[in-house]
């Protein structure tokens, strides 16, 4: 009996070596928070440099100092954000090693080499950042300026490589190469490179790259929105109005292509494992995508709302206003379609009335054909809003203006008709064919966007103005739309993080290393939402703190506000 007891004790001790515990939120909760906040900061420090480099380039090419200042303003924030990222990264590392030692051992076993490179690159990236920021005023003009811009580019390159390496680790957890075992080292034929360049690595890379740009843009816009609301002078208002616009523009423009990257990722996952695919889309997580649809609907609507209210300050844009309500209608209908759950929440009576868990009529909308069509329409509508915004105060002077506009219109009509037709026809073909339709739909929408945009660039060449944009004459509520955009996007990131991590269910490494802890259960959406909200609050709180710090520094650097001129609308992204 004594021996038995001792055995149990020993067993408990062994179990304690695989998993640690953390007070209050538990081991998983601690890692969750640390990982998610770290990730958000990482996205921030990757997204903002992209933003900075783009705006700096616009400043150089357009010889507009506003952009350069904007760029610098954000690089300053970056310096603080960088340390926050490193801090949370370190925290995550400590939590992982103490709470999941066995798992971390496995990862280290495989990836040690890449971890060293990662750490090294982090150094290089930091120094590039310092050079970039502190060299701003030194390499101000001529060739030196281009060199400085090159530094910014380099910063992005390092950041991207760092992200790709980290992505390799985490995608390995989702889709380890075939034949991997928990035994020490990798099996024959599988190298560290295989483990990094696994099935979902590149889709995740691209997905995150785009998402980071959106994220950077939306955080910048939120910052600007806050400054706009807090602004005391019309000049200040005009400046931050404009800054908010630039940030929102970049966020929305990149956001529009994000779903396509998402499709690719999902497709790769399905191909990798049916079980994972079904868990993700049809099974356990099916409702997560309804929540996602609601969030993305908010994003689309907030973006369009911002553009429409923004048209109030553009002379001549009022001629487009009568159309916005129809575009709104399209957006709302599409949002409803996208948000239609296939697995509805209903009481038994309601199920009985429907004759099953699926609604005989609305159930049709719950399928991929309907949803895909809806998303594509929302993208097209948003793009149309952009176009209207862009053209607000312009009168084209080229001789073929009318024909060009008609061609653009035709492109819109054709692509929407094609998307709609595929959406409807999709119900009459086998699933496998239907899935390929989503690719055609995306292709049609992308083709339309690129084609229309290309025509528009030439069409607007040398166009006349109907009057300057009255920057700063923006209603306050449009700025709140930007906040909604930023918060929603941050929350969405958290949700997608849960989706990505949750589909592994009770595996640390999918079908290789099991989570044998008592917290192996994938939590319900409610719990996940609490964690997501917590991380979002922590992150946004810290970001606000960083902004405040930036404000302090700004005041320290120059007491008097920078002279504000009349910035131009961004015409290319």
């Amino acid at each position: 009996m004594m021996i038995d007891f001792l055995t149990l004790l020993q067993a408990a001790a062994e179990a304690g070596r695989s998993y640690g515990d953390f007070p209050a939120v538990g081991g998983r909760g601690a890692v969750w928070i640390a990982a998610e906040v770290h990730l958000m900061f990482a996205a921030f420090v990757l997204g903002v440099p992209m933003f900075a480099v783009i705006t700096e380039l616009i400043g150089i090419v357009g010889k507009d100092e506003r952009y350069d200042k904007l760029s610098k303003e954000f690089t300053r924030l970056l310096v603080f954000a960088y340390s926050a990222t490193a801090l949370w990264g370190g925290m995550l590392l400590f939590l992982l090693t103490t709470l999941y030692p066995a798992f971390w051992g496995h990862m280290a076993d495989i990836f040690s080499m890449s971890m060293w490179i990662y750490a090294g690159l982090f150094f290089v990236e930091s120094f590039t950042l310092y050079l970039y920021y502190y060299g701003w005023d030194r390499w101000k003009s001529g060739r030196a300026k281009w060199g400085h811009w090159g530094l910014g580019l380099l910063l992005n390159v390092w950041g991207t490589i760092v992200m790709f390496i980290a992505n390799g680790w985490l995608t390995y957890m989702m889709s380890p190469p075939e034949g991997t075992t928990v035994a020490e080292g990798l099996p024959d034929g599988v190298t560290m490179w295989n483990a990094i360049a696994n099935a979902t690595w590149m889709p995740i890379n691209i997905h995150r790259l785009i998402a980071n740009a959106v994220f950077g843009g939306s955080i910048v816009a939120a910052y600007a929105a806050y400054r706009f609301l807090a602004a005391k002078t019309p000049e200040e208002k005009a400046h931050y109005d404009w800054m908010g616009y630039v940030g929102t523009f970049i966020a929305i423009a990149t956001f529009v292509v994000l779903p396509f990257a998402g499709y690719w990722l999902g497709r790769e996952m399905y191909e990798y494992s049916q079980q994972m695919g079904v868990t993700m889309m049809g099974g356990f997580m099916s409702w997560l995508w309804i929540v996602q649809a609601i969030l993305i609907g908010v994003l689309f609507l907030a973006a369009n709302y911002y553009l429409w209210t923004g048209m109030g300050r553009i002379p001549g844009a009022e001629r487009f206003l009568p159309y916005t309500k129809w575009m709104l209608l399209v957006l709302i209908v599409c949002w409803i379609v996208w948000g239609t759950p296939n697995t509805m929440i209903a009481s038994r009576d309601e199920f009985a009335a429907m004759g099953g868990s699926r609604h005989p009529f609305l159930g049709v909308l719950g399928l991929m054909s309907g949803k895909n069509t809806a998303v594509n329409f929302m993208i097209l509508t948003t793009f149309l809003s952009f176009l209207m915004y862009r053209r607000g105060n312009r009168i084209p002077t080229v001789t073929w203006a009318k024909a060009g506009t008609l061609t653009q219109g035709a492109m819109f009509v054709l692509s929407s008709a094609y998307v709609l037709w595929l959406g409807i026809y999709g119900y009459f073909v086998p699933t496998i064919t239907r899935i390929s339709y989503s690719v055609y739909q995306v292709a049609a929408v992308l083709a339309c966007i690129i084609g229309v945009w290309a025509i528009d660039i030439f069409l607007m060449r040398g166009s006349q103005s109907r009057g300057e944009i009255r920057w700063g004459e923006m209603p306050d509520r449009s700025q709140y739309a930007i906040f909604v955009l930023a918060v929603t996007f941050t929350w969405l990131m958290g949700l997608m993080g849960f989706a990505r991590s949750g589909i592994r269910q009770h595996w640390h490494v999918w079908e290789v290393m099991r989570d044998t802890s008592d917290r192996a259960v994938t939590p319900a959406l409610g719990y996940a939402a609490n964690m997501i909200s917590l991380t979002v609050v922590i992150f946004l709180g810290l970001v606000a703190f960083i902004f405040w710090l930036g404000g302090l520094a700004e005041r320290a650097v120059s007491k008097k506000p920078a002279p504000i001129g009349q910035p131009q609308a961004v015409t290319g992204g």
Partner: protein
Amino acid sequence: MFLTNIKVLAVGLAVIAFYTIIAQVIPQLESEVPEALDLSAGVTPEVLVTAGEDLFMGGAGCTSCHGLGTRAPNLRTDHAGEGTIGERCGSREQGCKEYLYESMIDPGAYLIEGFPPIMPDARRQLSNEQIWAVVAYLESLGGEVTVTADDIGASASAPSAPASSGAAPARTATTDPVQLLTENACIGCHQLEGAGAPVGPAFDGMGSRISADRIRTGIIDPEAEIAEGYEAFAGMMPATFGDQLSAAQLEIIVQFLAARQ
């Protein structure tokens, strides 16, 4: 300014709260963690019992005899007024779990009167850990679970299942077909001269239904072809008889059965 701060904060928090609430109002669903059958180190009695129950009720097929009470003693309910197995095994002098474990790996050792000696060696189907799990489950039926990880470890070095040891010899070198059929527990599931249970096709008249070759295949690879009407029992017959019988014994049985017109 203060009001603006409050407003911004309120909008942000309201948006977050909105999403959180949406996620809360839908019915909450946690994923299920399939039970890992890692019974080796640090296993608790509860895990063993649960795993054993699954095996007893399902995979191991124990209930096809022990559930009915006609082919073998019913273990889950009262038998002969001695209570469930967990209760009645306590009277065994070597201890409950030892008795159960031994009964499973050497069924001939403790025959209960009134029942045919048809139980196969559990090691043919179950791993050592699984056998202990079943023992733990049986103990839990009316008794105290005394199986520990220790037991599993201690018996792991014992001779392993005859099936996995490749060419394990048959228990005796007899050449009497009826004795072979009895010793190998065949008549537990196949009827011979009316005795036995109708789980598999009867031996009586087998020669008139199928050829000797088919009989041979059926013994060596029971899944190769399922006799009509016995589809529900597919998978029950162990595929270990080929290893267990010597070539000569196999042939004796085949010829014996083929001759049953």
